[in-house]
């Protein structure tokens, strides 16, 4: 049996799974925007809300963190850059390099916001089928006559389908290289090249196989999409999210 990346759809019965995909997409955009503008209190409120959703929807947090380890390194770099470049009172000073208090606070806030947005994306992908994402994108783009809605939606649906496949591929390639003691090579650039080249090649090969399999089953842009229907639950959720967003904005 295959071990799957957690960054993919997981069937479930949580409230998040039951929500209409259009509402989920709207919530994703709304909360992301609010988190970008929110201060400390706003971020605490959003984090509490997200923690409750993560627990309720049973998102596998441990494997999610493993999946996001490169993103965490990126966050550390952002934090480091902010600490060293924002002017202000120095917390620690070594020769001419100073870690400033405003830098630390602003870096931490930026990282916090990015974690919230990443977690939102994770929850969205975790609870939504790629065919539903396609249908929702198509629904939102329909009024914009100049955008080829079906094509854009198909591409987004395929991307959502492919991300887990690429992550799986990356993990398999990394394991194969670890089995051949790649860890003895300390040069990160060497290791990046060693994993990057086969990963790209295998990803294209897999994409090719998948395309042929989809073609064999008559795939086209014009297909029966999942039926989208908003229920009372969706409208209640929208009301709650709007209230929380208004509350954060008013703080």
């Amino acid at each position, binding site marked *: 049996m295959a071990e799957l990346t957690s960054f993919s759809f997981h069937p479930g019965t949580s409230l998040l799974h039951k929500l209409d995909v259009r509402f989920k997409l709207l919530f994703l955009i709304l909360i992301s925007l609010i988190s970008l503008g929110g201060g400390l209190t706003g971020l605490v409120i959003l984090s509490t809300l997200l923690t409750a959703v993560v627990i309720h929807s049973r998102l596998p947090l441990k494997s999610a963190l493993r999946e996001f380890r490169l993103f965490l390194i990126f966050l550390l770099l952002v934090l480091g850059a902010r600490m060293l470049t924002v002017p202000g009172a120095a917390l620690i000073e070594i020769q001419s390099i100073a870690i400033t208090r405003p830098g630390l606070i602003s870096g931490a806030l930026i990282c916090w916001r990015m974690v919230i947005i990443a977690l939102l994306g994770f929850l969205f992908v975790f609870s939504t089928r790629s065919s539903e994402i396609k249908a929702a994108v198509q629904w939102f783009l329909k009024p914009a006559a100049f955008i080829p809605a079906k094509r854009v939606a198909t591409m987004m649906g395929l991307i959502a389908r492919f991300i887990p496949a690429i992550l799986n591929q990356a993990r398999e390639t990394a394991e194969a290289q670890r089995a051949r003691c790649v860890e003895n090579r300390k040069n990160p650039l060497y290791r990046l090249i060693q994993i990057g080249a086969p990963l790209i090649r295998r990803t294209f090969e897999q994409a090719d196989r998948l395309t*042929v*399999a989809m073609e*064999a089953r008559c795939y086209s842009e014009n297909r029966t999409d999942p039926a989208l229907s908003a229920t009372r639950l969706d409208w209640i959720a929208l009301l709650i999210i709007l209230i929380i967003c208004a509350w954060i904005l008013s703080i």
Partner: protein
Amino acid sequence: MDIIEIEKLSHRFSDGTLGLDRLNLKIQAGAFVVIAGPNGSGKTTLIRHLNGLLLPTEGCVKVAGVSVQKDLMRARRLVGMMFQDADSQIVGETVYQDVAFGPENLRLDHDQIHERVASAVDAVGLQDFMEQRPHLLSGGEKRRLAIAGILAMEPRVIAFDEPFASLDYPGVKQVLSQILTLHQAGHTILVITHDLEKVFAHAQRLIVMQKGKIVRDGVPADIVSDIETFGVRAPCASYLGMEVRSWLN
């Protein structure tokens, strides 16, 4: 009635390699045909012409009397194909979604899609796995899921490309039994393999390919004697002059 008619079919790949060389073939509706041959003999290239995944460089392929090139969608609906790597054939996030993929592409309405999925999943015995993630199924179950995905399109011909590759013994039995059930239900079955042992006892016709050509074509027992000269291992029992037994017994 011949459901598949191939006349002077040649296929040359973009690098100049000749995949198929003026090949002629007719297959009767309802037949159980095994196509054997070593790697690179043109087996997969041949069946990919049946539903237009590859198009002829020369010659013509007809399915149920109509040229594949003239109506690709019809050919793809009539000829279902199970690929060697079942994982690469899985496109849905759940078993239900994966089986529904084909009927959704045929633009059927939701009730029809549901009916077809339920019947296809029933036929392969995966009805208890509807909400399961396909990648977590065993090898044999994945092959059965791929078959369900094909059945939901209601094809008349089903082509299996190395259906037993990397399966354990129970997996082979599951898939073989499924193939036989489909044959009994009236489907034309094409099985591509370089490992004859598992399917020999059930084949009505054996076609051996080499270098893009058909080099032997007939009743399996009649042509098995010199099959190894074409790079295909004969079933063990045939060395002893015994009847080749089914893997299901």
